[in-house]
């Protein structure tokens, strides 16, 4: 077995190491400086295409805020306060059937819903007079349907059940059904952006994806995103 090699430490300055052409006080050899420069150049060249490509893939997906859209769904008098009327609205324009979703709409009912929320956007345009429930199940996003006979919303995928107000009655969902902002304009009921509620029916303007509980620590674990429409009032 050969003895372990022990080379004496090299002197710090290149001129002490007898390298030709060295400046006084120079600590990095020119060969090393050159190779560092070439590596840095290569790194910059890669970053020049890799970083924009990464930003391209992430930027508009995560940080682009879509505009607020309102869609008229009919005469406000069409909607009773004791059952839901289904309406189909477009949430993502330009994608055909894929961008459509069903909304269950009814008028506000003090006996079921309690007093109206005075702070809801468009309160002066009957914003609090209607309840528009999303059909997106809060377990993993399958479409729920309203069964009038039992006054329950039932999810076909994993057995989530919601009461008449959208509160979780059973199964895996983590929070009540999402809702939509509404307003009345030109004697038409208009459906606006979606918002989420926690089990106290407290409003979360930036709607969350399903499977994200909003009670207790959940509201901090699942922050609002940049990709949801922002109401101006």
């Amino acid at each position: 077995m050969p003895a372990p090699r022990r080379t004496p430490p090299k002197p710090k300055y290149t001129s002490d190491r007898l390298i030709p052409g060295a400046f006084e006080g120079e600590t990095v050899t020119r060969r090393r400086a050159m190779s560092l420069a070439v590596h840095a150049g290569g790194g910059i060249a890669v970053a020049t295409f890799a970083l924009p490509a990464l930003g391209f893939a992430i930027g508009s997906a995560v940080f682009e805020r879509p505009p607020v859209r309102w869609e008229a769904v009919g005469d406000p008098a069409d909607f009773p306060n004791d059952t839901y009327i289904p309406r189909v609205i477009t949430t993502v324009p330009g994608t055909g059937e894929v961008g459509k979703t069903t909304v269950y709409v009814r008028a506000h009912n003090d006996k079921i819903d309690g007093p109206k929320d005075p702070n809801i956007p468009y309160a002066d345009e009957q914003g609090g007079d209607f309840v528009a429930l999303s059909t997106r199940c809060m377990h993993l996003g399958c479409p729920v349907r309203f069964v009038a006979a039992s006054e329950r919303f039932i999810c076909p995928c994993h057995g989530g059940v919601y009461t008449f107000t959208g509160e979780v009655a059973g199964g895996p969902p983590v929070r009540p059904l999402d809702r939509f902002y509404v307003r009345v304009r030109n004697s038409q009921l208009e459906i606006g952006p979606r918002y989420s509620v926690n089990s106290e029916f407290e409003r979360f303007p930036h709607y969350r994806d399903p499977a994200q509980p909003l009670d207790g620590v959940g509201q901090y674990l699942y922050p609002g995103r940049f990709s949801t429409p922002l109401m101006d009032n």
Partner: protein
Amino acid sequence: MPKLPLPPLPKMLNPRPPRPSEVEEVKPLDQAKEAGIHAVDWIDERTSLSGALRWVMFRKVPKGTNWFYTLGSATLFAFLSQAVTGVFLAMYYTPSVTDAYESTRHITNEVFLGEFVRGMHKWGSTMMVILIFLHMGRVFFFGAYKYPREMNWIIGFVLLILTFVMSLTGYLLPFDQRSYWATIVAANITASGPVVGPYLGDFLRGGAEFGATTLSRFYSIHMLLVPGLIAALIGAHIYLVTKLGTTAPPWMKADLDENLVEDEV
């Protein structure tokens, strides 16, 4: 090699042996026979490929190597089958939310052999996952993940995850009801991770909602990004298998050197 007697042909049909003074001329047929060898030689002289091929193909394998050792190659061929059928499916497929289902229906119902090629791709994907797990089980139960092959186990694990990514992204592409809702569920499962989950979900969908870019995003991941990674990692996987060799099955005992065996006293 013993020479067989010529069949009893008439004398005029028998080839005339050359006279001692005649120089044997090069016949075109012989030249043609040599052409292939010349071409291979020409390439080999410039690339030394034959050495690499010999290194890969003519390895020593331990005693006891059995049919279970073919599961890795079977997985490789499942991947190759997926790659080839996938490339050809892409010739007819349209990754757009309005046309994807229609183009899938066109492939299945109208294109010649379309149903077969699509079926190969669809069932082949399941087959590939099954083969990966059998291969993984073989490696596990034969202890082939141990030193010095840990690196290959890790690469294999990454390949397994990438195959799952392929399964997930490929599931959306037929764009029927099942594809659509399965992807909704998958994106929401991703988004249910704390703190970063919501943003990962946005990244996967290309926004807060399943939109026009979700399908093309999945398509690009499915046919460009992940296959490239898988192919590169399969290369590394096979390089390490070649370099380190395969293991003997655990029931094989090492042969003892007779000089080292002491007689019982």
